[in-house]
């Protein structure tokens, strides 16, 4: 057993001894237990929250549902992209060196789960997987993505950092549905764990400094706006000269991207559907 596994086991045991968390796990077990069909979970849960109940009786209900569906399909598009990207990479002989195989197998596994979850959440409303071209052809690029490990790493970093910003940008749109908001947050921070690891594999810091972009120039929009220093109306610029200065201020807060900004980035890799 590794040291971290040992520590995790200890803290799990501690958590289990706390009454609150046992109650929470029981509740989760009830909600997510064997009996529950995966397809019905997220919206089913949402319907039990007070806010959702109130929403169903309001005029806004229809629009609200449509919004949630659009947000989830947007997330699903990104997860489809990541899933296919990593699935191809881990299956490509000679691409990923032995020492990082476990890293990318783990990331790939997570993206598989996120796709499965979002498809189940959306049910019939789930969009079909687009056709992806990871050379960046649709964006006018011709990247050697699956024959050059460094290119693969760069795109991996770009997708993960974009994913973090994309989910963050939708928090407001999900704010009135506690269950969906929480699931989105739970995915969001896992994408950040991935991003940090991949960045560090590329010799970068795990966190984003200003608008620094080490990917090919067309991907600069992935980091646009990351140099923001105004948080909640307070300009933090210049306030921390002894604490890493403005670089640290920008590192300490990840910034959101709008749906359109993310679609423009993902558009580099999405083959437009053929017109009828």
């Amino acid at each position, binding site marked *: 057993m590794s040291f*971290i*596994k040992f520590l*995790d086991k200890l803290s*799990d045991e501690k*958590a289990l*001894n*706390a*009454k*609150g*968390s046992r109650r*929470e796990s029981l509740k989760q077990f009830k909600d*997510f237990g064997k009996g529950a069909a*995966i397809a019905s*979970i*997220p919206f089913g849960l949402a319907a039990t929250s007070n806010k959702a109940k109130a929403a169903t009786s309001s005029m806004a209900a229809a629009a609200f549902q449509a919004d949630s569906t659009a947000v989830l399909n947007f997330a699903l598009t990104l997860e489809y992209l990541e899933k296919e990207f990593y699935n191809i990479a881990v299956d490509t002989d000679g691409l990923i060196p032995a020492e990082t195989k*476990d*890293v990318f197998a*783990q990331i790939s*596994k997570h993206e*598989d*789960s*996120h796709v*499965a979850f979002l498809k189940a959440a959306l049910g019939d409303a789930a969009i079909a997987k687009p056709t992806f071209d990871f050379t960046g052809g649709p964006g006018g690029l011709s990247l050697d993505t699956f024959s050059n490990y460094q290119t693969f790493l760069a795109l991996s970093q770009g997708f993960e950092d974009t994913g*973090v910003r994309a989910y*963050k940008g939708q*928090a*407001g749109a999900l*704010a009135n549905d506690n269950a969906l*908001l*929480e*699931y989105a*947050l*739970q*995915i*969001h*921070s*896992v994408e*950040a*764990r*991935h991003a*940090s*690891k991949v960045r560090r594999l590329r010799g970068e810091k*795990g*966190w984003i400094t200003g608008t620094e972009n080490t990917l090919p120039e067309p991907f600069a929009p992935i980091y646009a706006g990351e140099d923001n220093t105004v*948080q*909640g*109306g*307070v300009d*933090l610029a210049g306030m*921390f000269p002894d*604490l*890493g200065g403005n670089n*640290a*201020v920008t*590192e*300490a*807060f*990840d*910034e*959101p991207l709008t749906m359109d900004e993310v679609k423009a980035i993902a558009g580099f890799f999405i083959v437009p559907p053929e017109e009828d």
Partner: protein
Amino acid sequence: MKKPVKVEFSGNSTKDDKRNSRRRFIKLGGLAFAGSSFLMYSCSDDDDLPGPKPPEPGDDVFDLGAGNLGVLNYAYALEQLETAFYKEVREGGYYAGADDNEKQIMDDLYYHESIHSAFFKTAITAAVGEGNEDKVLPDVEFDFSSVDFDDRMAVLSTSLLLEDTGVSAFNGAGKLIDVDAELGGTYLLIAGKIVSVEARHASAIADLMEPNTTAFARDEVLVDVGGSGKAYDKATPPADVLSAVVNTGFVKTEFTANELPTE
């Protein structure tokens, strides 16, 4: 409307647990603090449990508050804990002997958490308005004497515990923010901006401990949602986060969380 939870002054759910945590506290903190300064948190459902009636909190005990103020003070408490920890890390033997890369990471983590703390102090002070500064969580005192700051793995494993706790705490706090209240949407977005940085920290620290393994996003720290696999960070309610924090023995200043929202 967010439903408040009433928190009584009783440590854990059973007398035995309570004795244990008191004993642990004495062992870690020394007799000087015995029984006088530790944080306790439980839920109102415990009201009907047998046992001595807990004492009423005195005027000098800070309560985090209700609604968004309570959530902000709660986040501020966690940021203060992390800030204080990294401050001590940078004064210890591990840091002094660490290679440049690890030193830079410890510096950055100290900077980020210090900036988060300062931000929360400013934001909460602005939110409560002039003359209400007593509603802002004061500087909390910590005791890290149980951590050997000369030992790399001791420092990193404590760091990892704090960062993972931060991630699950912010994920659990998101839905507690009332977005219909003034600046509510802003607070939710800022919580999102901070939680992913905490997750980046957790990933880096785990990877320093066990490089190029699955540690950075390991199954053991993630949970399953709806049978789709362990691919989600935890979203932990404040009651559980605060009792975990109590269990570390790091918090010296007593405060209560009587009115934090629970949904």
